[in-house]
């Protein structure tokens, strides 16, 4: 992915590819939503969002990606297997899949995106409409992308399929030119 980093550097973007993460897809088992939420509250101190929101949860970010589905984004820590821990925590209540390598996550560290980025997104990205903690599943230039704004409002993350990540970086560069 060095080429990607290079691309981004050339564009002198405030964007970076996020690495050192574990991303786990969590889908509630049928009928287990309520119990799952109890377990999630005990483990993370928050409920799993039931609308397009991203919530901060003891260092993890829980991102709604569909009805009864979430991505849990965690920073890697030496000696810990986040996926295995989650699988244990949610055992029997949810199906878990390690999708760390399914998507590339780009971060634009800004309290609000640039004007060009605003106009190149298909969704209403205005700061009043897309508020801290908001999530959108949308597409950009033929590429599917999940966007979330960090709950503290300091950055935007864009998760696109890994095999499209160079196309996405290319778009990001053009959109920010």
């Amino acid at each position, binding site marked *: *992915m060095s*080429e990607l980093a290079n691309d981004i550097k050339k564009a002198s973007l405030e964007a970076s590819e996020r690495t050192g993460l574990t991303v786990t*897809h969590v*889908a*509630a*088992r*049928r*009928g287990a939503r309520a119990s799952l939420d109890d377990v999630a509250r005990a483990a993370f101190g928050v409920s799993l969002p039931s609308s397009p929101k991203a919530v901060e949860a003891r260092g993890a970010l829980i991102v709604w990606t569909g009805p009864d589905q979430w991505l849990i984004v965690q920073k890697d820590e030496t000696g810990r297997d986040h996926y295995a821990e989650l699988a244990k925590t949610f055992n029997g209540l949810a*199906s878990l*899949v*390690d*999708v*760390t*390598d*399914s*998507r590339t996550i780009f971060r634009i560290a800004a309290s609000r995106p640039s004007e060009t980025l605003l*106009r*190149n*997104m*298909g*969704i*209403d990205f*205005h700061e009043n*409409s897309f508020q801290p903690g908001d999530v959108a599943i949308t597409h950009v*230039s*033929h*590429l599917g992308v999940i966007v979330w704004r960090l709950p503290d409002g300091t950055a935007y993350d864009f998760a696109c*399929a*890994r*095999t*499209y990540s*160079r*196309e996405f970086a290319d778009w990001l560069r*053009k959109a920010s*030119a």
Partner: protein
Amino acid sequence: MTQSAQTSRLNNRGLIDRSQLLDFTFDGVPYTGYAGDTLASALLANGVRLVGRSFKYHRPRGILTAGSEEPNALVELRSGARREPNTRATVAELFGGLEAKSQNRFPSLSLDLLAINGLVSPFLSAGFYYKTFMWPAAFWEKLYEPMIRRAAGLGRAAPEQDPDSYDKATAYCDVLVVGSGPSGLMAALSAARAGARVILADESFAFGGRLLSDARTVDGKSGADWVASVIAELKSFPGVKLMSRTTVFGAYDTGTFGAVERVADHVAIPAAGVPRQRLWRIVAKHSVIAQGAGERPIVFGNNDRPGVMLASAVRTYINRFGVAPGGTAVVFSNNDEAASTIQDLVSAGVTVAGLVDTRTSLPPAIKSLARKHGIRVFEGAVVADALGGSRVTGARIIASYGAPQTVACDLIAVSGGFNPNLQVTTHQGSRPQWRDDLAAFVPGALPKGMAVSGSAKGTYGLASCLKEGAQVGAAAAAAGGFVATAAAIPTADDEPAEVSAFWHVDSSKHKAFVDQQNDVTAADVRLAEREGFQSVEHLKRYTTLGMATDQGKTSNINGLAMLAALTGKTIPATGVTAARPPYTPVALGALAGEHRDKHFKPTRLTPSHDWAKERGAVFIETGLWLRAQYFPKPGETDWLTTVCREVSTVRNSVGVCDVSTLGKIEIHGTDAGKFLDRVYINMMSTLGVGKARYGMMLREDGIAMDDGTAARFADDHYFITTTTANAIKVLQHLEFCRQWHWPDLDVQIVPVSDQWAQYSVAGPRARDLLAKIVDAPFDISNAAFPYMAVAELTVLGGIKARLYRLSFSGEMAYEIGVPARHGDLLMRTLMSKGEEFGVTPYGTEALGVMRIEKGHVAGPELNGTTTCADLGLGKMASTKKDFVGRILSQRPGLADPNRPRVVGFKPVDKSARLRGGAHFIAKDAEPVAKNDLGFMTSVAFSPSLGHWVGLGFLAGAESRMGEILRAVDPVRNSDILVEVVSPVFYDGEGARLRV
């Protein structure tokens, strides 16, 4: 050398920037203009009146309007790859170095030999295409059409690819205001002051609309100064976006609008990184359409001569551009705006030789104005004909009494009243309504969230427009939840705007044009009506009235009014043609945006792509993927040599192929097995944990959809693969089944195609190679990990991996998956550790050769028309359960035992080449369609066997084993004898898989 020095430019008048002198050429002749000019105003300033030739009769044409409705002044701009035909000179913004050319003339604009068409016009009447060029039919394509296309038509497209870039963008707002005339400005101001997000779009490069074109006073300031003060205030709001040079061309569902912004049309070459145009999708909670009204001409003889101009355009050229469009004018009108026209002409020093008004009794104010300036008034009169050829020299006037009179002039300022520009309000199906008092159509029922304001609504008069705009803008903001009050109304007067409907002078001697762009005359309309084309939609199609770049903005209403008179119907009963997007022409480049060339679709790269590139792989596009096709070694100049080497190495030692493109889907849940039983034709719930099985899915209609493998990692956890091509389709199908057919099942589906780098490691030494990378204590021996086993393990010292004992090649083989970020490392390690075995990477070609040798079906066989039985997989279908497609696969047509089935073919002459697509014919039969027995789907040269092998569908396949048939390929002139054989050419017993 500059030809003339803007002889028609008025001193101290106009909104042009006289400090910026711009050079340009027209038909190669150099001229000058000023910043703020359009090409049309600059040409008029230089005394150029003749700018084009008409579509059909090649009549000389000038400039009729000052806006986007222009039918005549179409020119080519720029040269070479940037040459751009059919641009309206009236909207083309002048820039230094602009090259403009007239079009549709030969050899020159002033001497056009094809003007002879005018003399043979009796043969070129309405619908002449349909009547004249009927026989012989064969001549149409070769002779008539090319001839017509050369003689008629508009400009020429550039021969080269467009060198500029185009962009697409989206904007959201609370209130979109379309048009920045008095009403639009007040609407934007009211909404902006309430705190709403406002977009104000105007097609011109300057905001202000008619306030720039008419000499009016607002709040004691000139129109232009008042506009400047409003724009300055609007700019001070952070939530306001001002978009000049932006045409809102269409209204779509739920407040979505299409707009095109001409970002760099006003410069010779766009700056680096700047698109030429940008297509906007504007999503507005509320919209205010304030696009004003367009003046319509009156149809009279020779009304197309250069020098006949809409009265409002005359005022625009005088007031906005500081140009006198003529020296002596006749004003021909049916409404009160004539007063403004006379005042502006007089103040510009143009002699007004006469006011011809169709009304029998003019308002006293107009009469006294005319008297004041010594202007002759013709009441109840018409201009029957314009005189002159390539320039107007006079007007033949017929009053209600007395003999016709001729008045010398070089300008006829004509006004037949105004048509509200309501097109955008009708794009979602609403129909305009006729108002007799205005003699015009006004918007009908509006889509939700849309309002219309000002003259676009039929509200004429400056003060009324300002007031209505303020109210509508405030209402739009209030509807969006803002506390809004209408902005204070600036002081201004309402000008008189009485009109008396008048469409067409029937006492003309000369051709009278209804649609100047399409050369449709009054006689054509009469003829069409006589021939039965009595609906406006038929009239349009038959005569072409209202078609082309102007979409009849100056002709539709006149045309339908004439049709109404001819049919004896009222205008509302006659109706109006539907206006569809776009409102004005939009370049295809803008619609395509950045999606051209390689950006037409995204490119997906495999995890080993960088490594394969370094290795010198030849790549092939397979759908969105770029895959390695083969890996030539130095000295290998022929692809077949390389592919044969790759196949032989796999068959004799070991090879590695990136198969990450296969669709990969995780199926979880307590009902995962039950779910898979319902979507595969074979049983999956009985699959043991740690095992994989080949599976086939059908479409609902019983046709084979896709094949792949299912692996079971736990009771409630399967991992399935699909073909590369069907990855998304299968995922959609499974989600549909899960969400819609069986929501009661506990099943969760997660696509993971991008998660895994997956490589096939195949060949007799595959195990030896993998043994070098699997971490202890994993036992990779045949006994511990037999054919069709699967396991989770770690490799290369702790990387999570999955191993599958699967084979597509027919050799002892594995597929190994690691998280994609480790894919590059895994490939490089396999290559270096495999050196001692002579490992080779292999690409899609070798993959294909080996699957054909093994008789595995793939894309060419799974082609959307074949059943399981056709593919030789009929016995796989379980009879103990139901599954998607089962019932319909039993339809007589699909269950017919005589359907062509997959079999193998080899050439009788072993040196002969097989051809995919060749048809099978009995040895002694004639190669005609009725003798067709089937066709070849896949062919390959088999290095293992030393000759070509093929798969194909053959009728009555089972009884034809061993038969010799002809394989006829008329496309490539091949006709050879082939033998029908088993589709499995290599290791029929499958012994090599299990070692």
